[in-house]
């Protein structure tokens, strides 16, 4: 054991711009131990540690020893012989972390084998609707399909539209429309991750008593008839005396609203959403309903 001068050690460390962490790493002890050495709570340490400490401080051993004593002292009440070099805990902790990670990987693999989820999430669909529409007007409906299938896949998109509405032009072209069932279908083969299906829906005037129009639909992979995916997203819109692009119902189409129109429908330029009317309402002071012509007109 060697008696050390804690104050000297601290001074040498600070002069050398070294940290307690650095000394602890070199000697192989904790920073708490270095702190205790410097604060003279452990006045004697192992010779081996003292030599490493001197090496880390780049001084001779004599420079860190207590001046009045040049040989190891026997144990006294001030000496704490057994705790100046607590074993580093890094290795056991590291083993525990690696073991936990390995167990998690194995568990995930086993779960994947016994409970595959690939088929349930292979195709998803989302509907986008305007917030409202006025009776007698037409509005766009978007269905975005996301496919995680690695190969092209055939699918059937079936959309149920509300009574009192008519599905007009679709992009791509609608495969079939059933007016009795109020449904329309696309049967298509998709080969990209994202695809968009859109149609114009027209509201007939006779919707007395209705305040919302409700939609529903599903996507089925053609080679797996039992695997039905509901179309998520918006499933209704309000019947209200505003243009469908006038989101905040202030009888104007402002900058944010017209940008939303172009950002949402830019992928389907062929869809006849009457961009001219939308642009002219935006460029003017607003719009109003012309009951004679049965459509919206701009206000200058």
């Amino acid at each position, binding site marked *: 054991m060697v008696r050390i001068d804690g104050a000297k050690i601290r001074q040498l460390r600070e002069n050398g711009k*070294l940290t307690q962490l*650095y000394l602890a*790493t*070199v000697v192989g002890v904790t920073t708490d131990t270095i702190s205790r050495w410097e604060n003279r709570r452990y006045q004697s340490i192992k010779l081996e540690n003292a030599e490493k400490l*001197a*090496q*880390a*401080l*780049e001084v001779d051993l004599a420079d860190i020893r207590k001046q009045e004593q040049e040989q190891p002292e026997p144990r006294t009440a001030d000496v704490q012989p057994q705790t100046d070099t607590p074993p580093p805990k890094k290795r056991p902790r590291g083993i525990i972390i690696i073991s936990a990670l390995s167990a998690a990987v194995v568990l995930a693999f086993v779960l994947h084998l016994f409970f595959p989820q690939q088929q349930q999430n292979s195709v998803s669909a989302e509907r986008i609707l305007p917030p409202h529409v006025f009776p007698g007007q037409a509005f766009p409906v978007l269905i975005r399909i996301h496919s995680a299938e690695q190969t092209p896949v055939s699918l059937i998109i079936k959309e149920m539209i509300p009574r009192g509405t008519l599905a007009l032009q679709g992009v791509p072209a609608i495969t079939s429309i059933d007016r009795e069932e109020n449904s329309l279908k696309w049967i298509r083969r998709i080969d990209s991750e994202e695809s968009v299906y859109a149609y114009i829906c027209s509201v007939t005037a006779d919707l007395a008593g209705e305040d919302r129009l409700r939609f529903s639909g599903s996507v089925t992979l053609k080679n797996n008839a039992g695997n039905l995916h509901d179309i998520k997203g918006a499933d209704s819109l309000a019947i209200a005396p505003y243009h469908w692009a006038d989101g905040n119902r202030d009888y104007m189409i402002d*900058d*944010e609203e*017209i*940008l*939303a129109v*172009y*950002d949402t429908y*830019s992928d389907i*330029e062929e869809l006849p959403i009457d961009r001219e009317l939308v*642009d002219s309402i*935006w*460029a*003017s002071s607003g719009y109003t309903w012309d009951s004679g012509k049965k459509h919206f007109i701009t206000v200058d």
Partner: protein
Amino acid sequence: MRRCAAQRMRQSYHSFFLGTACLLWTGLLMPALLMAAPDITARYAQSQGTRLVIEINVGSSQPASAILVQHLPPGVRILSSQPEAEQYGANRGGAKWLLRNLRPGTSTVSMTLDRAVSGADISAEIRFKSAQGGKMTTIQVEK
């Protein structure tokens, strides 16, 4: 020999922290900086006189559309513009263009005024919905 070993250990110690700092920079800060890069930038190629020209640069993560708003001193009229302004009124103090189907690259909007203006009397901005998140964003046209 003791001091050489200690020096080597200190160097490897510092290298470790330097390497960790570089990794953090690359892994955390760089993506944030890249995400913060603007979708659109614009500057006046000509900002005084009777002819104004604005250059608009669209980045790779461009929005589908944007609106250019040009503010003019009261009473100054736009005689002609390329492309045509969509919303304009001399009493409104400016004009608007709706830039549709944006593609990466540079385009220009030019306008001829009925009287000369100075750069200090005009300003312009571009409004768009950010491609990341759809937030409404406004940038000033630089002079």
